[in-house]
């Protein structure tokens, strides 16, 4: 629910889990009516597993960008990384973007016409409330509830061989494939993926699969993350403190040490910034080469970033949000690419622990410290509710 006092309290507490999930928080567990089908062709989805995303934690912890506030309708049921079943028992994953097709708007807006529903102009229109995605819209329900409603264009069948645990990561994998294709690294490039949470690790996998570079360097903080980054395709995994030293060597760049931080002359060709924090962003724009690309993949908040390097190095700073159709892959849908790639990635091993909705406080607290605790994707298991 939208509550300015709650938001202020949680933010003032620094987003600490015990406050962010307390009675003062914006997040409540309770019974709400099942969302009605907005139109005749919509279907009900009963979530099996629903992931806790970094963007969910940012919203709960009060450090989400307020830019997103008018693009959200309240109260909403969170959860947009969803694998579930339809009424007929078919297993599906949800493509949560709420673009023109979902909203029944024809002709679609220019971005949706290009196959970019994540950039839809019409997120305020149609039979459902404002919202960029399921999980941030008051009318659709979300993955952290027993039932949500979805337009058929949002539904993708899950192949039999893909477990629920793997399928719940199809949505973030699609985001990362989209980011990799946006970054467009070539075989001669040195690529850095900064951050090794779910998005960072899946970006490593996506870059390795779709745009394999000459050298792929992952920046990871925790031991489990380091191991997984290597497993998913990083040539080298480095700690945040050594990123300048390692990127310099990999690119034969020159390193200068300024009063506050280092910079490279030369550097990485493409950097995928998957942390979304000022420290990491400021590093990224200093170790990416002049004219190189910095792709913001992890959802950033309102962070203080020095724009001088972006200006002086003529960096291409680009966002990579959601998914759609990929021009670099002959217009194939990102979700289709993700579903094809998923079986080869052993995604299930990245998921866990699983929590019931009743244990949501523990789940949120665990997810907020996932890296330190050796976890990647913490998720809610709603299968028991149907049993």
């Amino acid at each position: 629910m939208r509550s300015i006092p709650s938001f202020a309290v949680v933010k003032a507490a620094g987003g600490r889990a015990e406050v962010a999930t307390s009675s003062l928080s914006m997040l409540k567990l309770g019974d709400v009516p099942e969302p009605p089908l907005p139109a005749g062709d919509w279907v009900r989805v009963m979530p099996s597993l629903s992931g806790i995303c970094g963007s969910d934690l940012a919203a709960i912890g009060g450090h989400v960008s307020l830019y997103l506030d008018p693009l959200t309708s309240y109260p909403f049921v969170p959860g947009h990384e969803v694998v579930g079943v339809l009424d007929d028992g078919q297993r599906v994953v949800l493509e949560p973007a709420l673009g023109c097709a979902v909203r029944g708007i024809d002709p679609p807006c220019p971005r949706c016409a290009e196959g970019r529903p994540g950039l839809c102009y019409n997120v305020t229109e149609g039979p459902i409330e404002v919202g960029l995605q399921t999980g941030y819209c008051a009318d659709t329900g979300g993955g952290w509830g027993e039932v949500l409603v979805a337009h058929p264009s949002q539904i993708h069948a899950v192949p039999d061989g893909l477990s629920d645990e793997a399928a719940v990561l199809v949505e973030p994998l699609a985001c990362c494939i989209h980011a990799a294709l946006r970054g467009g690294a070539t075989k001669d490039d040195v690529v850095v993926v900064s951050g090794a949470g779910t998005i960072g690790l899946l970006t490593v996998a996506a870059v390795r699969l779709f745009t394999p570079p000459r050298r792929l360097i992952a920046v990871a903080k925790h031991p489990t993350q380091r191991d997984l980054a290597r497993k998913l395709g990083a040539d080298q995994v480095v700690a945040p403190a050594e990123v300048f030293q390692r990127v310099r060597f990999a690119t034969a760049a020159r390193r200068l040490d300024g009063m506050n931080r280092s910079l490279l002359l030369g550097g990485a060709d493409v950097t995928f910034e998957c942390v979304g924090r000022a420290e990491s962003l400021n590093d990224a724009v200093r170790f990416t080469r002049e004219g190189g690309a910095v792709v913001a993949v992890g959802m950033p908040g309102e962070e203080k970033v020095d724009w001088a390097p972006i200006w002086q190095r003529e960096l291409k700073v680009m966002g990579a949000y959601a998914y759609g159709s990929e021009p670099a892959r002959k217009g194939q849908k990102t979700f289709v690419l993700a579903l094809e790639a998923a079986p080869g990635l052993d995604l299930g091993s990245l998921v866990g622990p699983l929590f019931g909705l009743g244990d949501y406080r523990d789940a949120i607290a665990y997810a907020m410290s996932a890296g330190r605790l050796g976890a990647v994707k913490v998720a809610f298991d709603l299968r028991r509710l149907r049993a």
Partner: protein
Amino acid sequence: MPRPGAVIEVDRNTPPVLFHFGEGIRLERLPLGARIVYPPDPLEPIAHPERAIKRALAKPLDDDPLKSLLRRGMKLTIAFDDLSLPLPPMAAPDVRQLVMEEVIDMAAEAGVDDLHIIAALGLHRRMTEDELRHIVGERIFSTFHPDRLYQHDGEDPENNVYVGKTAQGEEVTLNRRAAESDLVIYVNLTLVPMDGGHKSMSTGLASFRSIRAHHNAKTLLASRSYMNPPDSALHHSCIRQGQLIEDTVRVFHIETTVNNHAFPAIASFMQKRETDWTAQDQAMFLATKQMTDIAPPAFKRNVFHAMRAPYGLTAVHAGQVDAVHDKTLEAVRKQINVPVEGQTDIVTLGVPYLGPYNVNAAMNPILVVCMGLGYLFNFYRNKPVLRKGGVLILTHPCRYEFDAVQHPSYIDYYDEVLADTRDPVEIEEKYEMRFAEDPWFRQLYRKSHAYHGIHPHYAWIWAAHAMDHAGDVIFVGADRDVVHRLGFKCASTLEDAFEMAEQTVGRYPSVTHLRTPPIMLCEVE
């Protein structure tokens, strides 16, 4: 009369023996029956160095008197060894200063105007102005620096010339000013048998292109040891290159040797055998130990690196390189040789705070290996003190610390290369050119005070022979992660190390402790 070196067998009355431990010291008890090898006492220095220098220049070996080689209008270059020796740096005046002052006076008398003085640092780091001033003295520094006193730059494309190839295919380059001079006078200081001779010109004024001909794993593995030139493939290669250089340019060599008086009065206990320690020595040991146990590394480093050694000149010879160097080696051997009977299962060594490549800097882990398994292990003739497959036990804290100014490429070598492989041959194949040609390392070598990009590889392969020879290498009191990265074992105490060593060499092993520095060379029979 100074005592020669000695081998003492440990009995119940033997006091604990001093072990260097980086920027610290410790006393350790060795097992009964172990041997302690002590270096000889410092030889008496020449009473009047200036006179000895004049005499050497007037009556050179297999060459004309220097005075007769000097003439008005000639192009004269003096090259001299850099600060990588002696260790610790010599208390002023440095013998190189004394020699150069004499040479410059003679040149001035002969009317030589075109005189350049070049620090022959090869791929070592550029010295700071203070370091340079310390070696050459204020008079030379203020007269010649910076236009006519400067440092060799092995990466300057304009100022290095290709001389040719030896019969073995070794490429030879030379500093352009030296190559175009009518006469090059090389002023050397030989502390150990590895130094001097043809190696001076063929490394000191060379570029990577020619140095790589002998600074490589294959050559080092074939040098048993490089502290004994006749058995050193490294030196054979340098000689071939040096001969080619001598065919190109007229060279007059002046080589000096000093005694092993390596420690100032305040640290004289380090110079002495423990049985000779006076009450004052014992007090100084305790005070030093107390200080080094509690002081932060940076403070200890400043204290130790401020030490200047009261070395005394023991010989100076001038003339043709081979004739001079034979005499020089003779003088060096007289000071540092110690006869040692037979090899041993275990050798223990204390690695000190200083090696040739960390003057005024921390000794990083690669340099610890270079010092312990490179230099100290290789101080032998005939065969190593350690038997093949034996265990080498070293004491050093071996922390992950690097001097970012002096050793930037060492950081990448440690983090990237040693994480991949430790095999010197494999490293060379995969990484040699990458480190040698990295433009940033090149710039830091040329403009800052950094060792050349390839230098950590040279430091690493300096230990190749020891790594090949030893069955195990155990570091005592070192950082465990660092030692494992280096590929060795780690023990908390010397006792633990002996226990671990038994797994390799069996029970009741023979043990020899090399009580160095001061430097010594074991003649193993």
